[in-house]
């Protein structure tokens, strides 16, 4: 047990999914040719003026409400000044003292990333504000390139309270936050595309102390795993420093993912004075109680509520519900599928054990999956009404996955309909008994269940897997018993 405890707060930037940019009508899209999604406004040309994107504001408010935030009735935009080539105006339109959302929280619980149980607790959210993203710089030997396609994309900054104590808690907070954003369609939170970015504020103090140590800010964290690793590294670096009598300095450190180390980027002496002041080109934003109520009605069901509903209404295990709500797309798939089958539990099993495995193996998303939820539901009904056996279903499933065909079509084409006719099965049973006299003797001598299993296998083989297993067992017991 360490003598120190860590104090961790996160600043998470999330790009808001909108049709156009925050202050102009350029498309908000990723992956286009450099500097093709630009106009005089997002390039900061002389004389241009910003017009705030109402949809981005709406989504920010909904994000805030989903994190249990208060929505102040009066908000405004401010200018944040600093010089850098990725910022077209050399000031960023952001929000300083009157952000859209205040005082929220996110709940974490369950198993942490490193396998330990997490404390069941809320992490406070200080504020969520809306701003414009900056351009993307790329550095080449002897030159730098700037792509302004990203400049002006709506960007939420979600600031947590310093209430996390471990890398696991930070990881769980981020996972929850991402889930919420995806659930409400606020952002896809694809870190590889820069849609979600995270900075960490971290300090340590002796266990039980009530004053925080000097905080260090960590930047350049490109994945949740990098956040986790950098926090673990930084906690031990700070502990070593303090143990050796070295003072922790307030500074900004980067994360080198290959080396697995943090490194000094800039010290506090070089900190910016952002000279915030109210943006004179935009009017303050006022909401009425009715506006806020209206936003409230647009909040989708949160993962936690969805899990509870899946367990209560469909009889799923908490584990099933957990897996199916990891991504909203999984839950949507499940809910679409149960319109076509009467056994939700069986559908959940097939999604969790077969579908997600196949998707992962073929690196496809559930939305691009060849098997529609309707077809998977229909396949499960084929099992339920004894048209196919569970074993045949696996064949049908993989055919569906590659061809996208309906299960009925595959069963028909390949002649996979289960044989339930007793007289047909009985002839296979008789053949199996006839050809395996040694095993018949063994069965008679000890009624060994393994021997019965052997005969079931033989009959299934003879029927090319199409015989109904229950009927096979029944007839084998009858025929073997009567010998």
């Amino acid at each position, binding site marked *: 047990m360490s003598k120190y405890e860590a104090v961790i707060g996160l600043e998470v930037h999330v790009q808001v999914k909108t049709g156009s940019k925050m202050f102009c009508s350029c498309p908000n899209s990723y992956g286009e040719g450099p500097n093709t999604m630009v106009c005089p406004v997002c390039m900061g*040309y002389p004389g*241009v003026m910003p017009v705030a994107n109402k949809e981005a504001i709406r989504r920010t408010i909904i994000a805030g409400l989903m994190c249990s935030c208060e929505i102040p009735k009066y908000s405004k935009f401010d200018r944040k000044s600093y010089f850098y080539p990725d910022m077209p105006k050399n000031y960023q339109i952001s929000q300083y003292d009157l952000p859209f959302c205040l005082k929220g929280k996110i709940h974490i619980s369950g198993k942490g990333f490193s396998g330990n149980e997490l404390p069941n607790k809320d992490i406070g959210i200080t504020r969520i504000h809306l701003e414009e993203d900056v351009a993307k710089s790329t550095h080449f030997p002897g030159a730098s390139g700037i792509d302004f396609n990203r400049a002006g994309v709506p960007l939420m900054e979600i600031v947590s309270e310093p209430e996390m104590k471990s890398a696991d808690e930070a990881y769980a907070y981020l996972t929850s936050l991402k889930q919420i954003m995806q659930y409400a369609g606020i952002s896809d939170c694809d870190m590889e595309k820069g849609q979600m970015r995270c900075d960490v504020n971290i300090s340590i103090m002796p266990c039980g102390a009530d004053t925080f140590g000097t905080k260090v800010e960590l930047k350049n964290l490109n994945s949740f795993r990098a956040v986790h690793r950098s926090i673990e590294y930084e906690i031990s670096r700070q502990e070593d420093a303090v143990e050796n009598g070295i003072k922790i300095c307030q500074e900004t450190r980067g994360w080198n993912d290959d080396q697995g180390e943090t490194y000094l980027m800039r010290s506090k002496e070089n900190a910016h004075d952002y000279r915030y002041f109210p943006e004179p080109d935009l009017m303050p934003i006022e909401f009425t109680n009715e506006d806020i109520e209206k936003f409230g009605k647009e909040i989708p069901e949160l993962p936690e509520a969805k899990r509870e509903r899946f367990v209560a209404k469909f009889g799923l295990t908490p584990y099933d519900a957990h897996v199916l709500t990891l991504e909203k797309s999984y839950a949507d798939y499940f809910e679409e599928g149960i319109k076509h089958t009467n056994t939700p539990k069986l559908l959940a099993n097939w999604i969790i054990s077969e579908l997600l495995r196949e998707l992962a193996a073929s690196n496809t998303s559930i939305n691009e999956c060849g098997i529609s939820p309707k077809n998977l539901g229909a396949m499960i009904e084929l099992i339920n009404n004894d048209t196919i056996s569970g074993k045949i279903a696996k064949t049908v499933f993989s055919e569906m996955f590659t061809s996208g065909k309906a299960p009925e079509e595959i069963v028909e084409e390949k002649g996979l309909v289960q044989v339930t006719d007793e007289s047909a099965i009985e002839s296979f049973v008789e053949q199996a008994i006839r050809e395996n006299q040694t095993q018949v003797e063994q069965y008679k001598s000890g009624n060994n269940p393994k021997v019965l299993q052997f005969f079931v296998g033989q009959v299934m083989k003879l029927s090319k897997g199409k015989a109904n297993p229950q009927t096979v067992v029944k007839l084998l017991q009858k025929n073997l018993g009567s010998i």
Partner: protein
Amino acid sequence: MITPDALKKLDLASASELLEKREISSVGLCEAYLARTNEVDGNVKAFLNIDRENILSQAAESDKRRLEGKELSPYDGIPIAIKDCISVSGQPCTCASKILENFKSPYDSTVVKRLKEKGLVIFGRTNMDEFAMGSSCENSAYMKTANPWDLSRVPGGSSGGSAASVAASEVPVSLGSDTGGSIRQPAAFCGVTGLKPTYGRVSRYGLVAFASSLDQIGPIGHSVLDTAAILDIIGGHDPLDSTSLPEESGTFADAVRKSSGGNLKGVKIGIPKEYFNIDAIEPGVKAVMEESVNILQALGAETIEISLPHTEYAIAVYYIIATAEASANLARFDGIRYGVRPSDASDLNSLYFKMRGHGFGKEVKRRIILGTYVLSSGYYDAYYLRGQKVRTLIRNDFMNAFQKCDIIFAPATPSAAFKFGEKSDPLQMYLADIFTIAVNLAGTCAISLPAGIDKATSMPVGMQFIAPPLGEHKMLSVSKIFEENRGIKAFIPSL
């Protein structure tokens, strides 16, 4: 063909009449103005850029429209000069600064778009104080515009080129911008009429920002009617400017025409006592103001003394708020995306230092530094925040005054146009805007009209009417009646 003498008497309304009666073509009109410009602009230096071919092709288009009976407005084919801080697609927009040398704007400002939609011919870019910072045009990085009434004197600023071009009859009308008096003060110095609309009345989209919460585009012309007609065209809500007001435009010229021949019975005109207790006000100006008050009274107006108690803080507050906003507005000029990048910059900081160090003039740098300072952490509360509070007090002064009167009467400037180099101390220069600055802080509208001649200098003297926010109709009507009854009917320099 129009004679040079007739051209000097021409204004927007009369040019429109000639075009409507087919007594002149747009090409003929523009050629006459180009010839006039050719003749006098070597001395006046009102224009930074004139694209003769482009002007004549716009004029030819207009003539074609008229021939087909498809003219876009009564003003189709009439040239208008544009201050060099207002974007016209494909044209230079230097703001009279080296930092934007060779820069061409890729888009039309909303005002220019609206002028084009009514068929007006965009005629040249007028000189100004660099980034609209100054009161004499001496801060232009390119040249010093002279006052057409006396070439040894300044035309005022920052819209000095716009005022001088109209006064010298190089164009019938022009657009300027007014942040602290930049339309009204040069209009007064040059003997023309300058209108500063209510903040939000005219879209700022495409106006290179100096101080966003104070800037407003407005017209300069020979008459009240002309400025009203241009406001009709450029005013009205613009979705591209979030600070633009919803009020429609289009009935100002009608209001002016209707008031013609009328009197001022029942109009209460407030005279702020603080404005006449200022030491800087010169006797020649005072005399013209007294004469003007007599005219107003003779027209039946009731004049009452009012108080604007926070007048003495206006200049200080202005130089906090305007410079703060300017420090951010001018940050974009970094040589990264446009402008001529210095070739010898070795790294990012040296690029910034070289680009901005060489590109900006002295006054611009002074204001950027001042604005950066008042926003800095530790000083924000004492300067910017306090400045905003005092701004509210100044606005309240006006609102309280308008409880007692309909219109406020004031001088436009404390003196007539001064000589080049006369105000070398920046603080002295700042005082030239003492009667105009508070109007921008209050966000209301005002107009500056030529009222008489200063005996000592033989230069024109301007007076102002100030009205409540969105009070342009009344203000323009009162102005029209004053204009018809002032001692000198037409102010035309002998140039």
